[in-house]
């Protein structure tokens, strides 16, 4: 069954990602105020449900479970029908930057809201008669293009290995559901039914696996999150040292995933508060070696798709043909040129570099002596918050969505464990497991439609 609802509670960040320090999380739908009240503690101690419509309240967003304060916020309460969507709406103005805004959104999602589909607020505004007919075409186009985009990103976001893991989890769930359902639909067949304690063990193990996934999601491993940056340069200009240095500096090493080729390495880090995936390439140089050539092509391809390029040069050597070739390659792209090894004699021609980019985008560093790294970070932040990097909102959105679905799956499994513990009949366990299955399906894009029945008949020999 496809999950479509008309006025359930939805939430999303309604300000563009990455542009400025204030982010707004909008919650809309039947029950929006209840959701907000679960996560918001006002300074005056009053609940939002006790407040007048169209008022602003100061307070904090708290994690309902841990009690941890997430952000200091202003909350606007707007009750139906005089709101954008014509539904009860709460807008949370967050001040802690993008990551915190994200966290606020996640908290809302874990307390009754569902992640809004792209364009869903506008869609509701229209369906509830708030938008003029003349705007309808535009709304259609917007929703259509956004949905397409998010579908594409949602599916390409998943790392191959993560996708496999989620598929694996679903597979185990499907097996459990199928054996319960087969036994229900064929009561007299000798189907090997699992005992409650067997199911308990399996579900607990599944939960553990999802928790592991969630941990990696928090550190950005689950999807290629954030700005994609590529470090380019000839071998031995200091690319790897820079990378190591940056990772140390930020103490935000996430993990290293070996690239798909033998010679690209991906790292995730938090650069000046911005989530970044950095791809360290093998080093571009002309080569006759066939294997290496593939690596070089790969590097260029990475650079082609990157949001920003860090081009690294060796200050102690004059620009040669290979450098020029890379410079030509990055000329029309967003790039910062890093001139490294300034601790040794400068032999590089600064004026030539200026032909390729603005002065501000040329940063001098000495990774060895720990110089210039802060300048690099600062410049990167300027570019990012200046809106020069056209990063895709959906990238971040789908990560939150995925996490939300993993939480939902865990909650459903928890309920299944309670159902087992209280010795409720199998039918109820199946209900909980099916919820977990459909939550995981939202991540992988699989629908539950006929899956269970298909599985029943592949696994069990049934019939007259």
């Amino acid at each position, binding site marked *: *069954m*496809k*999950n*479509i*609802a*008309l*006025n*359930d509670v939805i939430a999303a960040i309604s300000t563009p990602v990455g542009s400025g320090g204030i982010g707004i999380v909008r919650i809309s739908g039947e029950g929006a105020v209840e959701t907000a009240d679960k996560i918001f503690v006002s300074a005056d101690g009053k609940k939002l449900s006790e407040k007048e419509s169209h008022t602003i309240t100061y307070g904090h967003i708290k994690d309902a479970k841990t009690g941890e304060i997430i952000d200091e916020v202003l909350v606007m309460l707007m009750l139906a029908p005089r709101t954008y969507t014509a539904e009860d709406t709460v807008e949370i103005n967050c001040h802690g930057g993008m990551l915190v805004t994200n966290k606020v959104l996640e908290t809302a999602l874990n307390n009754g809201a569902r992640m809004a*589909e792209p364009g869903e607020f506008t*869609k509701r505004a*229209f*369906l509830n*008669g708030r938008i003029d*007919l003349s705007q*309808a*075409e535009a*709304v*259609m*186009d917007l*929703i*259509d293009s956004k*949905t*397409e985009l998010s*579908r594409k990103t949602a599916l390409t976001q998943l790392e191959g290995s993560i996708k496999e893991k989620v598929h694996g989890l679903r597979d185990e769930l499907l097996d459990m559901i199928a054996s319960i*359902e087969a*036994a*229900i*639909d*064929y*009561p*007299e*067949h*000798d189907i090997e039914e699992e005992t409650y304690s067997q199911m308990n063990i399996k579900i607990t193990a599944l939960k553990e696996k999802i928790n592991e996934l969630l941990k990696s999601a928090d550190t950005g491993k689950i999807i290629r999150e954030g700005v994609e940056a590529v470090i380019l340069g000839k071998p031995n200009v200091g690319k790897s040292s820079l990378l190591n240095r940056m990772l140390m500096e930020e103490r935000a090493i996430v993990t290293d995933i070996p690239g798909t080729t033998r010679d690209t390495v991906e790292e995730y880090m938090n650069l000046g508060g911005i989530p970044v995936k950095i791809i360290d390439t093998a080093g571009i140089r002309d080569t006759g070696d066939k294997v290496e050539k593939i690596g070089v092509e790969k590097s260029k391809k990475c650079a082609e798709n990157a949001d920003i390029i860090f081009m690294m040069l060796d200050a102690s050597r004059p620009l040669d043909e290979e450098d020029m070739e890379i410079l030509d390659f990055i000329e029309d792209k967003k790039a910062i040129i890093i001139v490294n090894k300034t601790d040794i004699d400068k032999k590089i021609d600064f004026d030539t570099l200026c032909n390729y980019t603005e002065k501000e985008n040329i940063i001098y560093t000495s990774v060895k002596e720990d110089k210039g790294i802060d300048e690099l970070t600062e410049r990167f932040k300027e570019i990012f918050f200046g809106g020069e990097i056209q990063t895709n909102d959906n990238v971040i959105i789908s990560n939150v969505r995925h996490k939300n679905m993993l939480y939902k799956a865990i909650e459903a499994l928890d309920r299944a464990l309670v159902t087992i513990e*209280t*010795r*409720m*009949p*199998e*039918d*109820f366990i199946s*209900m909980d497991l099916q919820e977990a299955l459909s939550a995981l399906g939202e991540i992988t894009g699989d629908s539950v*439609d006929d899956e*269970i*029945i298909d599985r*029943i*008949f592949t696994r069990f*020999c*049934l*019939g*007259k």
Partner: protein
Amino acid sequence: MSYIAEEADVIVVGGGHAGCEAALASARMGLKTIIFAISLDSIAMMPCNPSIGGSSKGHLVREVDALGGEMGKNIDKTYIQTKMLNTGKGPAVYSLRAQADKGRYQREMKRTLEKTENLYIRQGEVTDIIVEDNVVKGVKTSSDAIYNAKAVVLCVGTYLKARCLYGETIIHSGPNGLMPATKLSQSLLDLGITLYRFKTGTPARIDRKTMDFSKMIPQYGDENIVPFSFENTPEDIKREQVLCYLTYTNENTHNLIRENLHRSAMYGGLIQGTGPRYCPSIEDKVVKFADKEKHQIFIEPEGENTDEMYIQGMSTSLPEEVQVQMYRTVPGLENCRIMRTAYAIEYDCIDATQLKLSLEFKNIHGLFGAGQFNGSSGYEEAAAQGLIGGINAAQYVKGEKPLILDRSEAYIGVLIDDLVTRGSKEPYRMMTSRAEYRLLLRQDNADERLTEKAYNIGLISEERYNKFLEKERLISEEIERVENVRITPKENVLELLDKYNSTRIKSGVKLSDLIKRPELDYFKLSEIDNERPELAYAVQEEVNIKIKYEGYIKQQINQVNQFKKMENKLLPADIDYNEIKNLRIEATQKLNAIRPASIGQASRITGVSPADITVLLIYLEQMKHSKRSE
């Protein structure tokens, strides 16, 4: 030379389980109805298993009964063993199943048809459907007799161009050696109706005198019986029950099958395509589950006054001589004699997506389809559709709105919605896994869900309706009482709790809270519930389920409320989906073909994505706006 034989309001073609329900419903709703059967001796025939009900099928029978249908009553009259299955697995999946005396089942049903006012039974083969300007006008029979009618319900089962096969043998016959309907398919094709070719099969019938039951495990019926019909009490229908038996195949069986696989009609290429997954032949089982050392075989009597025994689990299309050898490998069947050969049957049926949710053809007014003809399998699935087809044919003639049950109201709703929205590439079997709101669609509350609807269209008598209202009143009164009774930690209370290993209470609690404890229920608490009134079991059961599973039930009701919102957004019948910008091509094609009645139905069509649904919602809203501004 054709001649005009008669006029009727509704004509039902086919006298199987769908046809009987369709004809009875239409006649009981006051319309002159004629039912045609190829042989009057085959009315309500059970050509395959000798049982009614089972998982989810039992639910269908209860629903048919709650809507004023006949199947439940007829099996209550003629059962020879009954069982409530799945009782440990949750109230939603309790399933009632009864073994039938096939002969009596048929005779009783035929007698009921005969005794029904406005209903006329006629033996004959219908060869043509007469349609003018997309409106049905009647039927023609093989004797060139024309029967004019305002509505026609096709319940032709597996008879259309049927052939039965085993080994290299092909017999052009319907089920059980009956005459097939060879001409009607062409008439349907001429009307532009798309036909599929489906197949299914049945095992052999074996002489019980040649069986050794000492080598088998006897299977008993329940002592506490539950009737299918809401109008019957257990006392009304209590009788002696017969035994069924369980035995198993073994490696010898499997080897013999493997050696002769090439001679199976199914595997030898005589039959195209794949068979239904839920009733595979024994060949299928041996091939697909090669590592299974044995398969269960249930031996079920076909009636009390016959020696024919049904061999459940061993349907096959192997050659006759291999069948004999094969059955003889099974313990207890070493010396068995076959009375009827097992066979596979192939037949024409329709692509049900050509029907509306009312079961009327989208392009032919007044023509309805029901039962196996629509691509389903099973007696119960057929009866359920027949009932709805008959009701809606009558409603059509009367100029009233059709009765459409949705997925949150009945298994019948799930069945019909699945068939007409998604179609089926193999005979469709009802399963509880298909019902997403199954906790609400229980077999015990079918009357609560449906009886009022049937009363409103005239299928439930005033008397029965009042009884139903009284039952509902008792249930809600008792629930209210139980929610207000306080139980204090008195000696006898603590004793009872200890007896069921339930934590002792320290202060007063509501009786309903104790019922909710997993180890307790309404029944177990009767001895500490001093003011409990005397109530029928059906009432007590409802009270227990509704209190005990209150939380889960509420959860599903919330889901249903969301579901209903989408179902209530209706799509006009005349939308040209090509005109709607932004719909994906696949969605446009599917929507144009299926023409869903609501946004909800549209969302269940394979190939229609949530984005397409958004587009449709916006389109609907646009239309509303432009209508307003006109």
